[in-house]
């Protein structure tokens, strides 16, 4: 399998620091080999004549150059070790199998409401999140089950949350669209698109604050913000790109461009559909990567996360990916062209990684099948656990509204309302 970087695109402003080699490899415009499917616009080749004067902090470097410099060996070297490969494989299989199980459970009436499944996009979650430490943070959207799983939230906790049981990661109070874990630093789970990006920016701000104000010199926590193509037309996205670049916050903005926002094609909604180009406008590198290939995503992620850890600021990464299912389980998914779906189904990230592992003798069919089986058993256990878990009792209703329950106020009898036994029973009227 070819090296991961051939199809990576960059938005580069070659006013300084661009080495001559990068000019031999200008921006790769989508060709028939890796088409930006659905695009009806003629995409112009970006020439090297742009001469914008900008602060040096906005300089963009070509990631491919860095990677090339790191691996000078003439023979194509592998991008992962066996151990890493198996970790990636298992994580993607977990994500896929979990989402398939969700669909089953939904149609059996075990969960309700809006459930948004991640099938097809596993490479993005695995490629990025498996590089993080525990103290790094992940902020996601309503399509957050797999982000939580990749970050380390147990499948049992996520499944229970979806079933609305009290053993869920949010005690059943959040649901599919609000996966939180303080232990694993998963900061949501947000139902409205775009509203998680400022929260992610705040988490990155805390990291910088801890380093510079609280003098915790080794604090280099990075935050990843995941969101979709539709969000990239939202004001909060741009406001946060500005602030993150302005203050060099340790954050990576990961766009999961699956080309569709429910039924709205990215091209019908966006004046310039190349989202990665919007990074340099704010003074940060913009990178486009094939989001169906976990190894390519991982290489880009390594660099972006390292950049943030070094204190050089944010990166905008656009991952071209696709969701195999509809927007949610309620979406009939009639608008998308079957040819488009077939095209991306052929680029299934799990199949691709499996092929890579076998072809490069990192693993064998049997070992991978064993992982598949292990995941199946894990999920059976998760469903069983969720099934047997209790529903939240009435007494849980009024807990957690306030961190300090004095916030419910003082009642007519002079006591704080939270001291009223009806509060601990959940029957008081607030």
């Amino acid at each position, binding site marked *: 399998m070819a090296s991961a970087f051939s199809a990576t695109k960059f938005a580069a402003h070659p006013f300084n620091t661009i080495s001559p080699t990068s000019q031999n490899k200008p921006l790769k415009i989508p060709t028939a080999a890796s088409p930006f499917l659905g695009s009806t616009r003629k995409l112009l080749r970006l020439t090297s004549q742009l001469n914008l004067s900008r602060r040096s902090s906005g300089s963009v470097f070509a990631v491919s150059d860095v990677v090339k410099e790191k691996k000078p060996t003439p023979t194509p070297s592998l991008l992962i070790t066996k151990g890493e490969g198996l970790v990636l494989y298992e994580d993607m299989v977990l994500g896929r199998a979990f989402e398939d199980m969700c669909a089953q459970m939904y149609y059996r009436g075990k969960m309700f409401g809006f459930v948004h499944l991640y099938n097809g996009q596993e490479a993005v979650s695995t490629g990025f999140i498996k590089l993080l430490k525990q103290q790094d943070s992940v902020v996601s959207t309503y399509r957050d089950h797999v982000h939580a799983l990749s970050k380390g939230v147990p499948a049992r906790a996520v499944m229970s949350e979806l079933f609305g049981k009290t053993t869920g990661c949010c005690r059943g109070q959040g649901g599919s669209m609000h996966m939180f874990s303080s232990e694993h630093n998963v900061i949501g789970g947000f139902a409205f698109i775009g509203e998680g990006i400022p929260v992610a920016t705040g988490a990155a*701000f805390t990291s910088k604050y801890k380093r510079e104000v609280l003098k915790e010199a080794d604090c280099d926590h990075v935050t990843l913000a995941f969101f979709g193509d539709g969000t990239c037309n939202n004001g909060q996205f741009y406001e946060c790109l500005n602030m993150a670049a302005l203050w060099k916050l340790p954050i990576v903005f990961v766009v999961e461009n699956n080309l569709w926002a429910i039924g709205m094609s990215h091209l019908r909604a966006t004046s310039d559909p190349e989202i990665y180009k919007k990074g340099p406008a704010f003074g940060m590198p913009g990178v486009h990567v094939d989001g169906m290939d976990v190894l390519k995503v991982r290489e880009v992620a390594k660099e972006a996360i390292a950049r943030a850890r070094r204190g050089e600021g944010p990166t905008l990464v656009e991952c071209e990916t696709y969701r195999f299912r509809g927007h949610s389980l309620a979406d009939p998914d009639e608008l998308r062209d079957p040819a488009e779906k077939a095209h991306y189904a052929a680029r299934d990230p799990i199949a691709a990684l499996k092929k890579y592992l076998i072809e490069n003798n990192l693993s064998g069919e049997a070992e991978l099948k064993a992982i598949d089986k292990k995941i199946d058993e894990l999920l059976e256990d998760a469903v069983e656990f969720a099934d047997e878990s209790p529903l939240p009792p009435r007494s849980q209703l009024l807990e957690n509204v306030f961190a300090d329950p004095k916030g419910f106020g*003082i009642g007519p009898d002079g006591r704080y309302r939270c001291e009223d036994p009806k509060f601990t029973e959940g029957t008081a009227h607030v």
Partner: protein
Amino acid sequence: MATSFHGVGAAVAALSSSPSNSFDSKKLLCSPRRSFPVRKGASFVVARSDGSVNFDLNPKARRAQQLIVNAVATKSDSSPASSSSKPGHELLLFEALREGLEEEMDRDPRVCVMGEDVGHYGGSYKVTRGLAEKFGDLRVLDTPIAENSFTGMGIGAAMTGLRPVVEGMNMGFLLLAFNQISNNCGMLHYTSGGQFTIPIVIRGPGGVGRQLGAEHSQRLESYFQSIPGIQMVACSTPYNAKGLMKAAIRSENPVILFEHVLLYNLKERIPDEDYICNLEEAEMVRPGEHVTILTYSRMRYHVMQAAKTLVNKGYDPEVIDIRSLKPFDLHTIGNSVKKTHRVLIVEECMRTGGIGASLTAAVTENFHDYLDAPIMCLSSQDVPTPYAGTLEEWTVVQPAQIVTAVEQLCK
């Protein structure tokens, strides 16, 4: 030790009330001759609105104390000139806010400020003046003009361990941050199952000013009051401004602190020692027997001016500054209703859906049996605040209307 109206500058003019209307909220504190034995571990004094002093927030101790003073300074004492020998120090309300904020920033390095022009400019109402020089640009952060995003950033920072104070340059601008305030600030503690706390303070000036126009004269408290999971308080004197600011910063809950554009230059003498004001409590401004007047923020001064007239006419109004807009202090309010049996609410919100509307419902629900007359609620007109001075005056409740209302209520 009187609170005087210190009209300085054209931008923030004095209130429409006459300068001689002063009252002695300072006397609500215990006499300084009483010594304060400091309990081991207690580093602050909580001075309650009924005059009691506690070293902890034990609610049972609250009910033991009686009201000490009549807050209307008809028996007014010292003029400001002779106050140099008295304890405490005199300052303006915006300085009191700054003092509270600075003390909390000194006390806890996680407290930080974010907002437009809070740093180098010192705050558009000077509340943060000097703080950026002292604490640095990261702790007193000048943000770009992106309310939704920097409020969300404050929320994210609060969830990950900081204690931000977000300033809205005018409360009206926080309409742009409604998404973050409602969905994230109010709800995330609950939807995360209690995993993340959001100890954020959102503050700023609101209310009807001096011909600032419709959009700069909004009362956001009526829009925010339905959001679950937040607390709202309104300050009205330098004393409670500093106390509420400190209490809000120390609280683990998200608190929205409403200041008023016209009150920033009020002068008062406040204690030197550390104190906070309880976030959930109302303040007894003037005890009385005939009618309970519930008010907050700037309308407190209109009410007190009307009270002077009413006293001359033989009425004895009890004036309570509710301070806590969400939740309401039903204990203080209830005790008053049980005593006077008549309630008048005077607020600056619009008639529809304002704090007064909620308060009317709450009092009716809880104390219906004690009422001798229907609750009267005086609010601003449901009108975008006009620019013209005369029209603006007629949208807001004026003291004469309050006098008429009390006379009607007590008939």
